[in-house]
């Protein structure tokens, strides 16, 4: 099993969710985060002085999947989240040792 972490542009959430749905992945957890990378923040003006907004709003999706799904999910995310512009984000994949569904106590594959 693997845990896929995707950092995406907030505007792409609906598209990515639909794409995940299509590859049979229905559970995910979303966190509001701020990102810093090649894409630079903007400078805004307030009373003539600058406001540096260095961090950019992004969403982080955490998706637990079975190993055989991993590549399909990563590709689906890439297709749905890409705009071709800097700041589109990253996907990270980690190994999951164990998964548990709290409600039923089911574990691993059953629990995803």
């Amino acid at each position: 099993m693997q845990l896929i972490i995707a950092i995406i542009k907030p505007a792409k959430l609906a598209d990515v969710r639909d794409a995940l749905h299509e590859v049979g992945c229905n559970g995910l957890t979303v966190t509001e985060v701020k990102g810093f990378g090649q894409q630079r923040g903007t400078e805004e003006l307030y009373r003539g002085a600058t406001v540096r907004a260095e961090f950019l709003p992004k969403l982080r999706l955490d998706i637990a999947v079975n190993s055989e799904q991993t590549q399909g999910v990563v590709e689906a995310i890439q297709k749905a989240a890409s705009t071709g512009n800097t700041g589109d984000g990253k996907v990270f994949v980690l190994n999951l040792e164990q998964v548990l569904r709290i409600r039923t106590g089911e574990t691993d594959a059953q629990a995803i």
Partner: protein
Amino acid sequence: MTTTELAFSLDTFYLLMSATLVMWMAAGFSMLEAGLVRSKNTTEILVKNVMLYSIACVMFMLIGYSLMYGTPDVTSHALQADLFFQMVFVATAMSIISGAVAERMKLISFLIFCVLLTGFLYPIQGSWSWGGGFLEEMEFVDFAGSGIVHMAGAAAALAAVILIGSRAGKYRKDGTINAIPGANMPLATLGTLILWMGWFGFNGGSQLQLSGPDNANAIATVFVNTNASAAAGAIASFVLVRLIWKKADLTMILNGALAGLVAITASPDTPSTGMAIAIGAVAGIIVVLSILGLDRIKLDDPVGAISVHGVVGFYGLMVVPLTNSGANIVSQLAGAGVIFGWMFVTSLVIWGLLKVTLGIRVTGAEEYRGSDISDCGVQAYPEFVANRQD
């Protein structure tokens, strides 16, 4: 000092206090609209409201007042008090528009339209009824402006909404309607209560003279009826939405109260208390149905301005003959038609010209990020909006 001189002072003061309450309605519209838009468009709607009031005052002082009233022969109170009182009305008409086109109208086009409406469209039309023009001669009755101010503003708003289209995401492809909740309910409520308060100046001041028992009695009646109609409007809307949806949608209740205020404005001095309650209650029902109906035909009006001021303004004109023996339904219909026609057609032309020249709508990207960033450079609540979209 003679009693005439004293009456002059008293009447002047009465008009100035009334006008101050109407000026205060600028804050009411600002807060109502700021509460009902999303936070990403809040600063921009505040800019629009402050600027439209400022522009309306300057334009009306420089041009509109004399277009509407010529050089009026006022003797019972200070001429300047008359100017001040009439001036604050025009801002109300314009405020109606800012709400209806909120969250997508370009700031600069809006302000250009504001210059034209407050300097020309409104005063020309106003002169027909209040400046001794042909509607007045026809016995068209509109005490404080259900039609002349409110429906007039709504007509211009309707033209704008037709040309500008709905906010992105409001109407889904599958035909269902996507609610876009406003950001701040306490502000919307505060705005409504400010308007409610200011309306005592709006209607109460429109008697124009306080001295003499008849005037004083009339004004007191206006206060009671204005309040009664608003209260009944709120109650009727509450009961209706509660019955339909089992929920007490605050924004509908606020619209109901405002509908009561708009409806009674055409003739607040003639109904009995009971009639004022009835007029307001029906207005509270109409406004809810109208908001639902306009959404059905995809006219996107974030604050319900066209329903509150336009549909209910028309209704207000129509019920005048029920309580006012000086009015008749034919003149009321004719007056309503003339006012609506003039305001709608001229506005459509102006908005249309603006659309093909400067453009009237922000770009899709600007709409997405919010006009606060694109037009104002300042967000309304910079610390709170964690998820500013990029």
